[in-house]
């Protein structure tokens, strides 16, 4: 290996560790500052808590059922996430398949997307009952439309020349979908999954605000009222 190459590789390594160390440092500074400000009473511990108190709560999770509440929230989030993603993907495929349907539904999708889903809470409770179901429906409602719009946008922006190339081999629409459009949109899917897991959690937490017997949000709520 030449000296030049060694230098180049060393530089890459230094840069990588610099990024990692900085990330850890930011976390430490943030937590430290939080602890310090709470300790000195500059910020109100009652509202923001402090890192050391949070650790204490986690330390005796058996007595306060923290684990159980986490389990409920994670479960609801995962179910909401899975349903939202799969349903979104299926609807996006249908809309890609028929340009006419996509054009007809376009304004409705935009409206549904801008609608604050949390406002639908009471209706959801009336429809599916005040339980886990309502929370999952809320998670799906929040993530579904974004998924559809994201994936459809990716599908419609697939390189037209690739599709034309497949057509010159007399490809059927289903072949274009499975062999060109879906593999060409791998990064769209990954992006959509990343956004979705966050949105599902938002949905679950806002669902738990409305109707829950268990879960992180209700735990949070109970904990505060026990003060």
């Amino acid at each position, binding site marked *: 290996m030449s000296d030049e190459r060694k230098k180049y590789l060393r530089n890459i390594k230094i840069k990588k560790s610099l990024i990692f160390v900085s990330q850890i440092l930011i976390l430490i500074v943030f937590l430290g500052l939080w602890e310090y400000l709470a300790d000195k009473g500059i910020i109100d511990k009652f509202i923001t808590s402090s890192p050391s108190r949070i650790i204490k709560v986690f330390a005796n999770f058996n007595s306060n059922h923290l684990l159980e509440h986490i389990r409920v929230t994670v479960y609801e989030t995962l179910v909401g996430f899975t349903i939202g993603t799969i349903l979104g993907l299926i609807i996006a495929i249908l809309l890609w398949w028929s340009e006419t349907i996509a054009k007809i539904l376009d304004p409705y999708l935009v409206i549904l997307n801008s609608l604050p889903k949390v406002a639908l809470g009471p209706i959801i409770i009336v429809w599916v009952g005040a339980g886990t179901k309502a929370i999952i429906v809320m998670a799906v409602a929040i993530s579904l439309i974004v998924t559809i719009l994201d994936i459809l946008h990716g599908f419609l922006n697939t*390189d037209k*020349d*690739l599709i*034309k*190339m*497949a*057509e*010159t*081999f*007399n*490809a059927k629409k289903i*072949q274009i979908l499975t*062999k*060109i459009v879906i*593999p*060409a949109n*791998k990064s769209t899917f990954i992006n959509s999954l990343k956004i979705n897991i966050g949105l599902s959690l938002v949905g679950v937490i806002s669902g738990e605000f409305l109707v829950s017997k268990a879960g992180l949000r209700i735990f949070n709520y109970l904990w505060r009222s026990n003060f």
Partner: protein
Amino acid sequence: MEVLKIRKLSKKYQHENGETLALDNINLVVEQGEFVSIIGPSGCGKSTLLSIITGLESKTSGDIFIENKKMNGISSEIGYMLQKDCLLEWRTIYSNVLFGLEIKHMKNRENILYAESLLKKYDLYDFKDKYPNQLSGGMRQRVALIRTLCTKPKILLLDEAFSALDYQTRIKVTEDIYNILKKENITTLMVTHDISEAISMADKVVVLTKRPGTIKKIHKIHFDLENRTPLNCRETPNFSEYFNILWKELGVDER
């Protein structure tokens, strides 16, 4: 033998503020093993003509025959190459080459062996497990050609197939592709806006008029060379003669 015959072909486009006649009364015959180039001013409908022959676009009137069989819709007898190589970045070279066979449900042992033999013959076999972005522009174009050839089309259509390449690569690729086509005895119809490219490869050059595109004249191209290639025929005196004739023909129409 006539591989492709076009009779009285016309194409009209309908749009919201009227209709445009793009091609009018095109008659053309391409013989087995022949290389025919089509040139014409931009917007004369030369790419449209190829799209219609492939069946990607519909015709308004007229008939197209492949080996005396009347064509309707997308034909599996026709190979088509676009400006870009359109290789799928997520597939290996090997899997890209087999893409056409896969789509046409022709992925049998015989055809796979044929595809492999083409890869070996044209120095791509060693790269078969690489991905397209690891290959040069010229190699990518060869892969795209083999992808089309291994479905054994009766005629190959090239739609400005080299215009996305830089000049040096383009000359090299033209040379490569020409050699492959001649060795495999492929009948070819090429559309280009480059007069030199048209002359250097073709046995016949078809000149189209501006819109509506009609055939203005068909020139037979002949070079007294034992082993003609696109590069060596550029050095003959005949070449510049042909160039001047075609240049004038296109030039008059430009005004």
